């Protein structure tokens, strides 16, 4: 149910029409959740959808004939995220004790996969926290959506299951108030800006 907090923005939908927007969003998410076509094993989630990416994206390749292509909202389950190139970031953070090894998908890789038109996006967490992710060169810095912490999945109580992690230790210049604010934990939704 909590996945409904995530909102999918579809092109061609009047942004002002909030009711219709909600209906479309809900429909798309339920579709993502429930519809699992065997022929589209690569591009559609089969398990619980952990992350929805929408906004200014142009799904192609593996996601080209997604049933929700028209709506341009993509759901990702753990298997789909794991199937992408994994990147490890070992760092301390202001919110965790000691050095942690995080691994997950680089935002640049994720955005390349979904054909994102920019690297700016609205990140939203389970707890309704949201922040505009901008001003970070994701091609230069390996900023990841972490799936695992010290080799194990991350619980909600531990700020999981998905969490944006900056390589603060390797690049101390990243430890700014802005970056602390956009290192969204319990991430469930990314809306790519134009």
């Amino acid at each position, binding site marked *: *149910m*909590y996945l409904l907090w995530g909102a999918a923005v579809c092109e061609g939908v009047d942004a002002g029409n909030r009711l219709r927007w909600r209906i479309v969003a809900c429909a798309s998410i339920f579709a993502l959740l429930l519809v699992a076509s065997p022929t589209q094993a690569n591009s559609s989630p089969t398990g619980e959808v952990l992350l929805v990416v929408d906004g200014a994206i142009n799904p192609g390749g593996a996601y080209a004939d997604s049933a929700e292509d028209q709506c341009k909202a993509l759901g990702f389950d753990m298997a789909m995220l794991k199937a992408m190139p994994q990147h490890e970031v070992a760092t301390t953070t*202001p*919110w965790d004790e000691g050095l942690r090894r995080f691994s997950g998908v680089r935002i640049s890789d994720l955005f390349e996969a979904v054909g994102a038109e920019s690297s700016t996006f609205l990140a939203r967490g*389970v*707890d*309704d*926290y949201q922040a505009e992710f901008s001003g970070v060169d994701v091609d230069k810095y390996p900023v990841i959506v972490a799936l695992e912490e010290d080799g194990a999945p991350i*619980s*909600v*109580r*531990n*700020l999981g299951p998905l969490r944006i992690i900056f390589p603060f230790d390797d690049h101390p210049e990243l430890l700014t*108030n802005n970056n*602390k*604010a956009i290192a969204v*934990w*319990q991430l469930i939704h990314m809306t790519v800006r134009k």
Partner: protein
Amino acid sequence: MAAKLPGLPWGYSLKGLSKRLSERLFISVSAAAAVTCAVIMALLLMQTNRTRVQLQNDGVVEFNFVQQLDHNFDGVSIAALSLVVERAERAQTPQPLTSDSDLVRRFDVLYSSTRLLGDESIGSLMEMPATPATLEAITTFIAENDIKIAPGSVLSDVELREIAAEGQGIAHEVYELGLLMYQRKSQLRDEVSARMNWLSRASWFFGGTFFIAGLTLYMLLTRASRRAGRLFHQAHSSQRQLETALEELTTGDIQRKSQNRFLAAATHDLRQPLQAMQYYIAALEPHIANEKGHEILGKVGRSTEAAQGLLTSLLDISKLDAGVLEPATVSVDLDALLVRLHDDYLAEAQDRGIELSIEATGVVVQTDPQFLERILVNLLSNAINHTEAGSVSIDVDSTRSDSEVSISVKDTGVGIPEHELEAIFNEYYQVPDEGSLSASDGNLRQGMGLGLSIVKRLTRLIQVPLEVSSRIGRGTRFTITLPVAVNAGDAAVPQVTKQAVSGDGLDGLYIMIIDDDPSVRDGVTTLLKQRGCNVLVSSGIEEALDTLVESESMPDLILADYQLLNGATGVEAIERVRDEVNEEVPAIVVTGDTSPDRLREARERGHGLLHKPVGSAALFEVIRNTVHGAPDLDNDTPESLTNGRAATRSV
């Protein structure tokens, strides 16, 4: 040195005083500004650091923490109530919670958001009095419900309502904490804002003080550097003087210097009566009736002229020792000079029954023409005077070297004993065997032997080697060796004959005369008026200034006697007049004093210099040169050297 400077007028010491005062003021201002700068800088640093620490300790994380905590407690409460409402609507009995259930998820989120409790990231929240109680309530709530709200547990409606009520209560406490924080942050912001205003003003003040400090420091440094420059200059000139003194010590010049002081004084005293004597002789002439008287008067006249020539020689020595003459090396056509020497001295040689042989050779040498002429004139005159029979000749030998030519002045005179060859260049040297000739008035000068000592000085000045060889009874040969001119094309023909003084350049000049001697004043005034000059006459400094004010005109030239009444000097008078008109008016100092220091002083101040007695031709020439500028600024050189020669010849 200071004792020899003329007394400074009152204005100078006042200037010096104000200079010293302003320097002290500069130092005080600079020091005060620097100290103020340092104090302000220290305050700025302290206050900036304080603000920095405050801002660091007062981050923005607490806002987010409070907001999220409030929201998450609300979330749990709403989820609990929703469960109650849902059950009522569906008329369900309590079911066990699953991991999917909204309440469990909400509680997990709340749990995760409290993990930072007590962490330093909540910063200033910890300082608030209400915080500990709220934090304890939160901890208790989490600990109690961690067991209740878990997958598998069954919660009654009452329990759910209880959880919702507790959650609401804590959310409210957290909200109040947020309000407190808002107020506190507002106060902090006011404080920081006020301090920033102060810092801004202090920075401006600092900038101003810094500028003043820098400016005064710059001025002080400039002054110090100027003074250092002066000191360096003084040290340099002191060193030069020391070197000169050392050289004088080693060459024996120092002895000559003491003689020179006596000479200068003697010349000064002798010149005045001599001038008078010449006037009286001229005045006496019409009163003498017979031939014998005229003859005697003629001899007296010649004696006077001879004495005058002697004085001129003494003056030459004074000047050479004072170092006021500087050679100017040019290409000199030797032939033109030799021909003129031949012409000038032929008559004198014939009078004495001596053969004079000077040959033209077509050689051009590199030297100072006037110095060279003076050397040759003295050598030639010396040779003629010491030869009773035979010949005097000038030989030019350019065959020994391509770059040098030697000029010898040879006579068949009495000769000089070998052990005295060095001594002949000293002043007052007398050839021992010449006593018989001293009866002749012409030998008065010869007896003094000044000619050769002048030659010695001149050759040293133009750095030309002077050799002498002699055999008793056979004669003497003086040889100087000069460098051959590299570029003989533009050879200068030495101008010995003074330019005929014409009225040009003097007509209409406004000349101020300052002299305490009325006869000199009147004489010069008459001379200048004849030449069409306008003349302002005064006897001293005060009168000169008064005259200046009355006439309301700017003089073109100041002609001042060196020795004025009441110890004032012409140099001082010139300075005062220049100050009055605020213009560097050209000036000439007239002096009977031949002391090297006087000559040097006048020269250093850029004044022209005239020696008493002043001939009208010399006067006009120096005036013209001073007013219109002459190629050779040393007006003194041609005048006295020429006079010296003229005096020699007239004997």
